[in-house]
């Protein structure tokens, strides 16, 4: 995973959740205040817009931590 993408994801977390804490691959919704099902929608939409990709229903469900986001981005070639 390139550093560019990591930085981009961190920026998206700042944007969507106003989260400025330590973001690592193991970070889960429990670690990020406000990461509930509604904000999950905003997160997925922002990821899609930023990386110009389209996630599937399963992928939306698959995201259980930040590592899963990176796995998915990698799969889409972002």
């Amino acid at each position, binding site marked *: 995973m390139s550093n560019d993408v990591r930085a*981009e994801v961190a*920026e998206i977390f700042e944007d969507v959740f106003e989260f400025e804490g330590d973001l690592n691959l193991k970070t889960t919704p429990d670690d990020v205040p406000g990461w509930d*099902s509604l904000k999950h*929608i*905003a997160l997925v939409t*922002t990821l899609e*817009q930023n990386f110009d990709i389209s996630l*599937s*229903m399963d992928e*939306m469900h698959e995201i259980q931590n930040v590592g899963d986001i990176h796995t998915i981005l990698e799969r889409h070639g972002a």
Partner: protein
Amino acid sequence: MAKNYSSEVEALIDAVLAQAASCLQDKALLQSIDWAKIEGDKVSNLLKTLDGAGKKAPPWLLTALISAGHQMDEPRVERLSLPLKFLNRLNGPADPDSTTSLDVASRRIEDKDLALALVKQMKARGLENDALQLALTNWDTSPQLMRPMASQMKEHLEELPEARLRVLGYSTTHPFCEDLAPAFAGAGFKAVIDEANFGEVIPELLRPAEVAYDAYILYLDAQGFHTHDWRLDTGASLQMLNDKIDLLVSALASFASQSAHPIFINTLPLPPTPAVGFLDQHHGDGDNANIKLVNERLSELAAQQSQIVLIDSFVAMSGIAPTSWSDPKMWFYGRIPYSAEASRALAGNFAKAWRAEKNGPPKVLAIDLDNTMWGGIFGEDGVHGLQCGDDFPGNAFKAMQSEFLRLKNQGMILAILSKNDPTAITAFTDHPGIILNEDDFVAHRINWTPKPQNIQELAAEINVGIDSFVFLDDSPHEREAMRALAPQVYTPELPDDPAQRPGWLRSLSKTWPIRLTKEDAERSSMYLARRKASEMQSSAASFEDYLAGLEQKLILEEVSHATLPRIAQMHQKTNQFNLTTKRFDESDIKAMMDDDSEMVVLGRAGDKFGDHGISICATIAIDGDKADLKTLLMSCRVIGREVEAAFLGALLAKLKERGVKTVTASYIPTEKNVIVADFYGEQGLTKSATKGDETIYEWREGSSPVPASLYVETLWHS
């Protein structure tokens, strides 16, 4: 974030740059380079290489270079668009002359990289207001532009007048509500949003909240409004749709008669995929046919009620491919009816409607003559050399004149503002192809005085402020001068190509009327009187009638293996109507199911419009003649229809049958469940104790009433 390329890649790029002249033809290699990672002197060398080979750097390459932060010499950018030229200037060393961004901030910029580069550079150069304006202008197509402007946006909002909005919808409105803030800010307002409960359209319209909102927004979507039930035959299904439309239309009419506030409603977009193939436009099961039916009824109502304003969803979303109007996974995930981009586009048009409501359209259209009113130059070509008429290319100018007449008919005042020989006015009488007459114009200034000065005089003569003017001129210099010296005048970018202009003028939303004339208003009050007479006979005049008309049923049963997952899921997901928010999972519920001293009860709600499925449930611990309601929760889908009262009543009656004499029940507040803070009290239970945050209520057989609803029939399923 621009990191450098690795040395291996850099070597490849150097090879490409050395062969730039040959690479130019095929674009491919040069287009794949991220120019932000390439040093300035390599870029200068590239341009020199091209010059040396006798090739000019093409616009696409210059655009990519400038967007990546490089500065080109002025002669190279001469033919590029104004935003690119402006960014090119910002890319250079600080220059006091470059701080006038003029109209760049109000331009639509299709190229996303260019837009983002402009926002960032403008911000970096201290043009924060312009950067924010540009981000807001293009936010609907490039939402990422707002990211660097977050703090400026917060400050900006505080300076804007508030628009207090109540948002209703049949599906999830939340993401759309988030889009309303930037959309309204772009139109000059701070949106203060209050969302109604999920799906509560009819109850809200029949019983408008007492809070004073400035406007209501009804966010309509086809699936949420009506999902075709293919178990029904065509007749029954059409009947159901018509019943729903009747209900909505009468609720809207009732709202309009009780409230002075405008209500903005988007029409339903026609579906890109038919339900009945080639018959879809007219068959009773056709999606197109049914959606047209809904839109038709809404249009009829809006024609009668001037406070009901329709937002044409097709117009709003016309920049987006119809297949991208919705995002199916978002629908299945959270009943989100439109894709993110469609939601932004709709939000943008709701905001424009609000701006029209508050400010009205501009009053005066000030029009230049040569190459704007007609083709050619009066002073050089003479009256009969001017292009305007039925033949190409004069027909494009005639079509534009026809648009000017349209705006005149819709209440705008026309004026002429031209640097010209004063005798140019004779063209309106002497040229056979010109369809406007001299007296279509209320005033004119045809002389050699600078236009910003002339427009002040025109304003004084017509007796309106210059902020009521729209100025159309084909000359970029005249437009720049007007923007610089009379910024209150609205000076849009008239397209260079006369063929584009008539359509462009129609799309200029600042000129869109929202209400036309006084006669219109009078006509609507006439309709109002007529409608009131007929409304006496119509259904759903009150909220109670509505509830009675719903024919609601609630079927209660104890949990089984089949229903267990849904009950666990409800415990996990329900936030609002949830008295204690204890998150029992499947194994917890299973344990209760197997325990005789525990009870898990669920209710299936339904009405004449269809089934809502398992919508409410409770878990109860029973100890002899005492019982405790551990959890009670309900899906938002059925809030506000007395299902909760019916359920609680039936549950208490059942417990009584089992010998229970007292029942305790708690309310534990969370951030989201304030709507049930007084639920037990309203149902007649007595407050008996408090424990920290928790309030405990009690129901006693004999002395406490058994809650019930007149409008919900309950029965137990064994």
